[in-house]
């Protein structure tokens, strides 16, 4: 039979020559700057074992262009998730690179406890983009305060796009106690068709649920 099976040790060959170069912190740090994307990716992956690696991973990600390396760095930062990692990720929300910015948003979505205080800061940021990103993080954030934050935003934020982004989420998760704020926001942006559309949708969904047994 042409399909053959080798002994387990042989099958699962580890390309030892390359990995043999001891994969200690200093060497991995060096390999994170290698000219081979594959070497950088493996370094990023293996650096997750080192608590002190957050800073160098964050430095690398700013200049990294290979998507597979960026994604591995983000996974490693997510696995280390110390203060340095979380703070650094939050700072990356200001990156000019739209792909990176959004990959960072996704990473932050999986760290509910760690991002709580940052979300509270971000939703008060003077930059509307950052307020929008904060809402984007909330989309899948498993945190009990999400509803409270959303309500604060639609009650107080003056920017139409920030409010619209919050309403997008309210249309999915809004409860009866959102109704007065939604009515208010409809008045506030009475000449914005999108706000009217999504507010009406949210109201309809909330009310329909109310009447069902």
């Amino acid at each position, binding site marked *: *039979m*042409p*399909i*053959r*099976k*080798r002994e*387990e040790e042989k*099958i*699962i*060959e*580890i*390309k030892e020559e390359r990995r043999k170069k001891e994969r200690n912190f200093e060497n991995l740090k060096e390999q994170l700057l290698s*000219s*081979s*994307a*594959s*070497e*950088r*990716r*493996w370094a990023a*992956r293996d650096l*997750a074992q080192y608590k002190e690696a957050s800073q160098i991973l964050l430095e690398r990600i700013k200049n990294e262009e*290979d*998507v*597979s390396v960026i*994604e*591995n760095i983000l*996974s490693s930062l*997510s*696995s280390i998730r110390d203060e340095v990692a979380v703070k650094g990720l939050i700072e990356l929300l200001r990156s000019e690179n739209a*792909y990176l910015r959004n990959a960072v948003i*996704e*990473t932050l*979505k*999986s760290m*509910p406890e760690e991002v709580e205080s940052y979300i509270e800061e971000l939703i008060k940021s003077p930059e509307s983009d950052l307020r929008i990103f904060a809402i984007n993080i909330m989309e*899948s*954030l*498993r*945190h*009990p305060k*999400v*509803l409270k934050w959303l309500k604060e935003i639609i009650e107080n934020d003056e920017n139409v796009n920030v409010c619209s982004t919050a309403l997008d989420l309210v*249309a*999915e*998760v809004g*409860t009866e106690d959102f109704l007065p704020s939604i009515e208010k926001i409809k008045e506030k942006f009475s000449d914005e068709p999108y706000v009217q559309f999504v507010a009406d949708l949210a109201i*309809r*969904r909330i009310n*329909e*649920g109310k009447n*069902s*047994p």
Partner: protein
Amino acid sequence: MREKTALSEISLTDEDFEKFREYFYRKTGIMFDESKRYFVDRRLVERIKLTGHNNFKNYFIFLRFESTGKELQNLINALTVNETYFFREEYQFKCLVKRVLPEITSHKKRGDIIKIWSIPSSTGEEPYSIAIYLLEFWDDIDKWDIEIISSDIDTNVLEAAKKGLYSERSVNNLPTEILKKYFNRTGIGYYRISDDLISSVEFTRVNIIDRNETKRYRNFDIVFCRNLLIYFDDASRKVAAENLYDAMNPGGFIFLGHSESMSRISPIFKIRKFPEAIIYQKPLEEGR
């Protein structure tokens, strides 16, 4: 057993259903159309009750914001049927033989090995299907050495896979000649796969989201990872995709289940369109 309450006490409005299916689609890639409404409603109402909620709205908030994310996993289990049988989604095997293997071998030289990873192995239907399909339908099979490794996290299914005993239902999709050629009937309604096939697949235990355990798996040209990633949360799914990527050779191909799409998991793979299927590829020009 829990106290039996009539399922009809809780119901979903059209808006609830719309909200739910949008969310579920975003998380899993599975889109329920109106024809599935009854099925989805029933299962949802069951989960609403089992989790101690009294209406869809409360349950939906629990589902989305509860800290462990376990309920989404439970719900996915309730809403999907993870059946495994021989030649399941056969068009993918066709694509493997007609398009993928010729491309893989064009970058190889005589004597090189073609490595295939089938994960999850479950009880063996998939890796054995691959072996049979190659033996039956790939003309170049005699020119190359092939290795099939199949892994699962569950050691019980791995043991079953190594025994190779299958129910009638499981082999139902196989053409009669193939069934006769590779299986022996044992007792009532059971089929035992041939020793040759059993010895052609190596079964191993691995947790695909473990970045350390998966390190040993390298140099695969082809990966089948069907209907597995769907059961993980977003972050684990992404790590699994990265681990699979690292396990593959540049230019290697990965098959997902037919309702799964890499577009909701990770951007690291290239999309390749073939007449039979969309498949994902690790870029060929990737750094060493």
